[in-house]
């Protein structure tokens, strides 16, 4: 047991070291949080009213410049909001109506209408934003892009059919 005894000197050394390390971590925390990204209210990052359900034709792609997304209405009537930022290196991907796909100008990645990758180097489909339909109006929450491994029919949001 004698070996495991910590001398007073060692105890103070360890205590000083621990206190110093704690102070460093705290200072680091202060600096990191001071410089952390600040969210700007009201602009990109908030919930955006896209418009009435009926104003979007099935099979259409409508760009929203301020919200930085495309509101896609699939031919079956399902809604999908796609973040326009290429999943490869962040370029703005334009919709090419003639070819019916998104083609990135930077490294020629291309995507289906539902965001699925047709042509790499993009590693995953275009990110999407959550879409909700309230009283016949389409709302898009641009707060957090949702990453996905593959495009799925579950991503689509449908307007309730009046019965």
């Amino acid at each position, binding site marked *: 047991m004698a070996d495991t005894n910590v001398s007073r000197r060692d105890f103070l050394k360890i205590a000083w070291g621990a206190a110093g390390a704690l102070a460093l971590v705290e200072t680091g925390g202060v600096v990191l949080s001071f410089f952390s990204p600040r969210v700007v209210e009201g602009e990109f990052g908030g919930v955006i009213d896209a418009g009435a359900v009926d104003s979007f034709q099935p099979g259409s792609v409508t760009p929203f410049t301020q919200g930085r997304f495309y509101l896609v209405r699939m031919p079956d009537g399902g809604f999908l909001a796609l973040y326009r930022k290429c999943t490869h290196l962040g370029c703005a991907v334009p919709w090419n109506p003639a070819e019916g796909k998104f083609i*990135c100008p*930077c490294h020629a990645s291309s995507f289906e209408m539902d965001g699925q990758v047709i042509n790499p180097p993009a590693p995953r489909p275009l990110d999407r934003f959550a879409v909700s339909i309230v009283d016949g109006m389409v709302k898009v929450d641009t707060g957090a892009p949702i990453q996905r491994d593959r495009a799925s029919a579950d991503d689509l949001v449908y307007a309730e059919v009046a019965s």
Partner: protein
Amino acid sequence: MNNELDPRPEDLKQRVWESIQRDELPPSDDRGRMRLVMNNLVLHLHPSKVAKPTLKFTYTWGLGGLALLLVALLAITGVMLMFVYTPTPASAYQDMLNLQTDVWFGQLIRNLHHWSGNLLVIVAFLHMLRVFFTGGFRAPREFNWVLGIGLLLLVVAANFTGYLLPWDQLAYWAVTVGSSLLSYIPLIGEGLRNFLLGGPEVGAATLTNFYGLHVAIIPLTLMGIVSFHIWRVRKDTLTIPHTVDGKVDGSDDGDRIEKVTTLPHLVSRELVFALIMTGAILLWAVWVNAPLEAAANPDHSPNPAKAAWYFMGLQELLLHFHPVFGAIIIPALGLGALALLPYQRFDLSAEGVWFRSRKGRWLALVSVVTALIAVPLLVLLDEYVIDLPGMLPSLPTVISNGWLPLAALLLLLIGYYDGTRRLFKATACEARQGVFVLLVTSFVVLTVIGIAFRGEGMALMLPWEVL
């Protein structure tokens, strides 16, 4: 009462002067010259005497001094630019336009800053090559080599953060593409990118962040490490240049190393070189304007969107490898190897000899030619013939387009090292230099392909079709 006479001179003018400059000017003998170097704030960065052979221009090419000159030019022009520039998206681009039309000599000062900044990236890189090829990193100088690698990274970071400030299309998309490389670091990548940009995309917060980094944090860190770097050189001195026959280069009887006073032998050479280079940069800046494209437009990416030129080698790698490999693993391996390089065992007889030895020179040449042929060939093969992910659809692309090609390339490298050792009967020191030359040339070739041979949609084409 003490009636002893004050020994200081009567004349007030002379008394003021001697309170500022304590030593005799000009010094009358070598002792005086050495004392002057030692007592002067700026000159004492140098030792008071230096080995005469190290003064030979073709040994150092003055690259370290040139880098320091460029840092000074950048500091002066940079501070001037700070007075006519506001880092907000609303005014940054307008300030650039005003700089060209309203500010007296605004275009010239911007050109000087722009070209010095880009030249510094090249000069720092060449300085590193010079130190490597003359064995200047050997003990006790290993850690100074590591500091130098840190300085090279800081120079690139300074250039990259400055790239954004004009807020034109070139700036906006180069930084978008460049910072997206970061987001491929596993786990922390996205967070790191968002932290640096102040949000998920390049915007107002990014401009503020980059401005702070560019004008305060990076320059202060750089100057601190530069001082340390130079202080170490002063303590460790330069390696003595030797010819391939093992004789001291620039000595009459081959062995004796003559020492001369720093003043005037080194200082006069430095001043002449600094003056010539300042003149050359000034001439260049008068004739060639720094580019300024249309104002940044986040809605429209130009085609092709290229990263800053010194990242084009990485961007080229990214076209051939899975992003985690192209942007993170391969560069990290390269930098790690570079930092550990001076801790390898080193053949003492090769110190101070350009390219180690006669065989080392041949091997370096062979390595350059090999890279010049092999890299374009591999790029063409990967572009038009081999499609690993397509051939192995059942494997995830991290393996088919990452681990597999990387393993193949590493095997080729090991084969090259082994082959040159057998074929040339090269020492480990010479063979390692061969691999280093092979890799550096490959990086340069990839950079050139990225800059000059990639056009619309990043498709391969000939340089006159790109521009």
